């Protein structure tokens, strides 16, 4: 499996996936840093007691769009990992070798996971540092929140890998983004539902989280970083980027099972696939 993992790393570097990602992330962080710096100065001027609510908004926005970028990267990296290699004939030279098909899938998954985890961890630290140094917000150091931030792209990675075993690259890309969009829109509807007191909208949000739990994981991160005991106001003030109710630990267990389930399904389909 190590051979496949190393090849996946090499592919990420050689095909400049890493380079493009790092450059775009740097551009995003630079823009985000400038926005936090100047935005916070402008908005906090004369804000009075509401000043304390501005910095969390910036943090939530950074984590929200950061999640989006990393999930996007996960999909882009893995969307054609199996299908395109079957289409262009690369798999024809690998599968007949003395390697189990499951090893190919797991090797690729581990390779991309490691890359995404490192990238997500660095991104997470960068967002927290930008907000802390520009606004003075004391953000609790929580390894669990960082871990969840790294878990998000793995959900999309598992989805893209499964799709790649039976869909064409284009169809898989569309399907993965549609599914991600369902999670994002559902998550927003859920938050609006909390604000508007609409049970129907909250239920739609919960159902969409079952279809795509990435957004629920984001809500959990935001809640664990920004909630203050006894003060739910700060959460509701974050609007669609906040977390009206803390996603339960069962939701996280569900997200982990979701990744595992998609991965097992990918293994099963690929192990029986005619190439």
């Amino acid at each position: 499996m190590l051979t496949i993992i190393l090849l996946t790393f090499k592919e990420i570097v050689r095909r400049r996936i890493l380079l493009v990602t790092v450059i775009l992330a740097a551009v995003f962080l630079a823009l985000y840093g400038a926005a936090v710096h100047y935005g916070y100065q402008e908005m906090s001027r004369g804000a009075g007691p509401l000043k304390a609510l501005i910095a969390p908004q910036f943090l939530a926005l950074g984590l929200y769009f950061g999640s989006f970028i990393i999930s996007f990267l996960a999909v882009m990296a893995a969307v054609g990992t199996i299908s395109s290699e079957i289409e262009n004939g690369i798999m024809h030279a690998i599968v007949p070798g003395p390697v189990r098909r499951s090893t190919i899938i797991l090797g690729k998954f581990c390779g991309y996971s490691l890359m995404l985890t490192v990238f997500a961890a660095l991104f997470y630290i960068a967002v927290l540092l930008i907000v802390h140094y520009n606004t003075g917000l004391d953000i609790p150091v929580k390894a669990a929140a960082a871990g969840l931030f790294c878990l998000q792209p793995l959900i999309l990675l598992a989805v893209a890998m499964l799709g790649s075993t039976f869909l064409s690259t284009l169809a898989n890309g569309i399907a993965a983004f549609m599914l991600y969009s369902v999670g994002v829109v559902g998550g927003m509807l859920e938050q609006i539902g909390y604000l508007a007191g609409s049970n129907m909208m909250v239920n739609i949000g919960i159902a969409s989280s079952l279809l795509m739990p990435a957004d629920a994981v984001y809500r959990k991160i935001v809640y664990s970083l920004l909630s203050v005991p006894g003060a739910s106001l700060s959460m509701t003030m974050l609007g669609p980027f906040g977390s009206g109710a803390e996603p339960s630990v069962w939701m996280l267990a569900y997200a982990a099972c979701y990744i595992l389930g998609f991965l097992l399904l990918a293994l099963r389909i690929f192990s029986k696939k005619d190439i």
Partner: protein
Amino acid sequence: MILETENLTKMYGAKAACSKICLSVNEGQIFGFLGPNGAGKSTLVKMLVGLLFPTSGTARILGRPLGDLGARRKIGYLPENFRYQDWLTGEELLSFHASLRGMSGTERKQRVPAVLEQVGLAGKEKQKVGAYSKGMQQRVGLACALLHDPALLFLDEPASALDPLGRREVREIMLELRGSGKTIFLNSHLLSEVEMICDRVAIINKGKIVAGGTLDELLAQTVEVEMQVEGLTRPALAELAALSKKIAVEGRYVNVVLEHSGQIPALAEAVVKNGGRLYSLGAKHNSLEDLFVDLIQRGDH
């Protein structure tokens, strides 16, 4: 037998890409597998190397069932429509395949330059595979297939992208490998190539094996005879038609296809006995191409 298949079948819906294929290949031979486009040649090879799963039937490679990892360690495969990771250099590609096959660092250092030399790519190993010409890609594919010194080699159209010089080199590599006791299963369109190097041949058409055996056995199956006859009577023609598998008359020239050369005296007798005047009679043995075309055309009608 290093390779045996029994009723190996691959169905795509109601269409049989391969139907009840029974083959056996002896160790140390070059086995030629022929057929027109779409006949099922690549489908069979893909089943044997584990890319496709048979719908029914069984096969044993090196005494083990299909898909066995131990057997796959000892087979090499050059696919027909393949592409390698174009962002790797030739050397990196071979190192990856060596690692995939569990070769140690020492083995790798020894084998990679050796196979590059063998396929004529020495000195080109630092170039990216994407910058290789089609012929060089074919050579690096062959190098990947040879890397682990396999006992059984499946080559699917190995010379298709090569120039005549390259073809000759590949032919020499195959003969060398046979000389060292390796077995080669060769899928090819190049009948002259097959005729030159193969010990046994099977011909597939529309998913079914239509002929098989050594080249001598196959080519002795039919003899074509051309006669120059004047005054060919109806009874003579009827007798000739009864003797031959195929008959064509054009003016004073009569072409017949016989099952074996032992029937030639009876042809002359049929002409003379029925009042015809025989001026010449010449027999020629079929080439593999004649046999191939005949079998495929028969199957199409």
